[in-house]
């Protein structure tokens, strides 16, 4: 079938029609989930806003909320990819603590300077991730066991490194990573760049239809579809700038999430992860190197754990032996609430970030309401189980 031939055009037309149909009448399962989750988030926000006498949805609180979620969400982006490949990582909380400890140690004790300590934290994350990946993929030790061992061992390593003490950080530039905000002007510049990027992608999508001889380029249609993301970008900047500007951790999260979405949606590596998690035998027989890809995804999660560790340590202003305890469970919960299957093969970066936002909203809202600490844990635990339970029920029906 040649590009530009009649049957090619007819085929493409039918294909698009079908896509429109799935979107409008029946929804694709993933899209439907996303809408439901956004609705749930809206309900949670509306309730907290009402219950806190209109404190919840103020620029100041939203800015805090976004900053609070950034560590969990960055971990969730990496965790999502590991879960999609059919694996798990229980050690990220401890690795976060250790990488943060390495950063603090190298900047205060060894006085190696800021760039070295940043590189060290991320590098140690990658090395640990690859180590876990080798044990899992090449030595066939189940991921659950490898990372359960990691959970204990790396926590021990932090305590050893810091001598059981909290190490305060005096370097103000380092602390800025977790506490500063972008000036309003720079926020707008970045927003303009983001909008330009959205428009460029829309243009390229419309062009590709023409380039492949599938019909005329529909520039107006693609432009209209860009309105929602562009509106979102502008609203986000307005809200953030009406407090102190975009927090640096949130900026890092946005970059990480976009990177994760690009990897999972638009690269061969991402496709291989879904294939391995969906049917490892079929993936292997289709020429995919399952082991190598699992190794890579653990290395990637390790790198993101290093990034999260920098933000976490900078926000607190010190490295503590118990930094990041239970963070692995927050990250896994975010993925699962966001629709990822622990059996592998299913899940999205968008869902994982939304899951992290829901978790952070619950934390933030309940703190504002002075809900007792133990009650918060009980409620969060129940919501996690209920969310997955409802999802399973919905799945059985369809």
């Amino acid at each position, binding site marked *: 079938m040649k590009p530009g031939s009649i049957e090619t055009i007819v085929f493409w037309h039918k294909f698009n029609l079908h896509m429109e149909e799935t979107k409008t009448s029946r929804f694709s399962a993933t899209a439907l989930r996303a809408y439901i989750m956004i609705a749930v988030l809206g309900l949670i926000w509306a309730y907290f806003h009402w219950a806190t006498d209109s404190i919840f949805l103020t620029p100041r609180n939203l800015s805090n909320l976004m900053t609070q979620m950034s560590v969990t969400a960055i971990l969730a982006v990496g965790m999502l990819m590991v879960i999609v490949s059919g694996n798990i990582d229980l050690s990220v909380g401890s690795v976060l603590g250790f990488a943060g400890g390495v950063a603090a140690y190298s900047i205060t004790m060894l006085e190696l300077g800021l760039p070295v300590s940043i590189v060290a934290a991320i590098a140690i994350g990658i090395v640990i991730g690859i180590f876990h990946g080798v044990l899992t993929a090449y030595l066939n030790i189940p991921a659950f066991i490898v990372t359960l061992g990691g959970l204990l061992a790396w926590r021990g390593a932090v305590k050893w490194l810091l001598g059981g003490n909290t190490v305060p950080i005096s370097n103000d530039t380092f602390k800025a990573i977790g506490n500063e905000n972008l000036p309003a002007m720079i926020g707008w510049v970045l927003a303009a760049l983001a909008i330009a990027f959205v428009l460029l992608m829309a243009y390229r999508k419309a062009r590709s239809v023409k380039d492949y001889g599938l019909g005329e380029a529909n520039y107006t249609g693609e432009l209209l579809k860009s309105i929602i993301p562009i509106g979102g970008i502008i609203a986000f900047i307005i809200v953030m700038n009406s407090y102190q500007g975009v927090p640096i951790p949130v900026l890092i999260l946005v970059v990480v999430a976009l990177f994760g979405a690009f990897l999972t949606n638009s690269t*061969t590596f991402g496709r291989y992860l879904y294939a391995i998690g969906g049917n490892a035998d079929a993936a292997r027989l289709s020429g995919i190197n399952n082991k190598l890809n699992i190794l890579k995804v653990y290395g990637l999660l390790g790198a993101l754990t290093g990034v999260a560790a920098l933000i976490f340590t900078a926000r607190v202003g010190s490295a503590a032996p118990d930094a990041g305890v239970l963070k692995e469970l927050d990250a896994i919960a975010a993925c699962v609430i966001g629709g990822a299957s622990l059996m592998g093969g299913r899940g999205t970066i968008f869902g994982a970030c939304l899951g992290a936002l829901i978790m952070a909203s619950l934390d933030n809202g309940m703190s504002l309401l002075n809900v007792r600490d133990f009650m918060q844990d009980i409620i969060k635990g129940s919501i996690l189980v209920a969310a997955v339970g409802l999802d399973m029920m919905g799945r059985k029906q369809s």
Partner: protein
Amino acid sequence: MSLLEMRNIVKEFPGVRALDGVSFTLDRGEFHALVGENGAGKSTLMKVLSGVYPEGTFEGDILVDDQPSHFKGIRDSEAAGIAIIFQELSLVKELTVGENIFLGKEPSKFGVINWSELYHKASNLLRDLRLPIDPRVKVGSLGIGQQQLVEIAKALSQDAKILVLDEPTAALTESEVETLFGILRDLLARGVGMIYISHKLDEVFEMSDRITVLRDGKTVSTHQAKEITKDGIIAAMVGREVGDIFPIPDHKLGEVALKITGLTAFSIDNPDKKLVDGVSFEVKQGEVLGIAGLMGAGRSELLMSIFGAWQGGFSRSIEIGGRPATISSPSDAISKGVGFVTEDRKRFGLILEQTILDNMTLAGLQKISGRFVTNRTRETMAAKGPMRSLRIKANSPLTVAGTLSGGNQQKVVLGKWLLTNPKVLFLDEPTRGIDVGAKQEIYAEINKLAKEGLAIVLVSSELPEVLGLSDRIIVLHEGRMTGEFTRSEATPEKVMSAATGH
């Protein structure tokens, strides 16, 4: 008076009559073999007998000791003294031999197991069978052959009067087979009746009193083993015309595309057992080479080993297009132009929850879409070629593969491999479990691909399919090549006789 009588059993699945009025009798102390091609209905008949298909899902009567039986499940048939040993072992590898033998019926009081009684009974039972196995060792630590014997001990612990053995020797070495037969002879002398399903005619003739042949869900004939020859049995097994659903091949053969020398592959569970033993062959451009053989003859293992995907040990030397080639992984194979439409599409071929598009582009993803960054438009363009030419019936490339019919699923797997631009294409059971229409379409496609110069290696359990499509046929029996025929030489009888090691 017979021990067991099955009368006019009819069992239907949607669209298929798997058993069509089968009758079967078994006497006390009799060894009665049940033979037939793959899919003739042997296993289905045994599932009816064991209550896997409960009463009411089939027609006909089952009489044990002349008493009508009504089995609602496996427990009922066990209570009536029927024990079945299926091809796949049903032992729990992490439990001991004794625990396995008494699984679910442990001697106990108030739920507390009496371990000394359990192991005492188990060792008595094993001694009765003259099996030198310690009941306290884990089943997983035993070889496959000994596990098979434990399975028989388990069946006898239930005082089985009727023992059904479905291909019990498939995974056994010759000496293990001898041990097994020794035990079976003892049991026969004690009056146990045995139904024995096997493709190995030598074994069947060694042990049987009577032999019943099934074909296409019907009883063809029952013979006294002494009064019939192997040829007679083979003729009864195949007695079917090769239909005209096969296109007439008109292939122009070119250069040798693939040459395999000395391929040997070992079992994963039993690393001393050779599943394929020194097989060599070649296939030319534009040729369809059929590989015939019965279940367990080593056909899939052969293809898997060439493809670099067999997970047990293997060795072979490969020439592609006249040059030596090394293939150590499926991706090596793909890059050297070998494609592999694997058997069992749900297990090995498809990611059921993903779309047609995602499945079809998976094997050739880096070529089709991009080395690192993917391009959906390009993928869609590529996928629509096979979707069209193979006539995959689906609304769009975005239909989820798991929702398609078997025939369309099979076409998606075929499409996936066509998109890798192969020069040599392996097809392992390409029409298993799909309807006749889809079969015919796949036959036409195979023929077309060969005409376009592709070298095709076709493995199929359906004899008419191999005979109808192949330019040349090689036959495997227990991992060894036992025959090679050109299209004009090959007859069902010759192929079947080579396949049964005759």
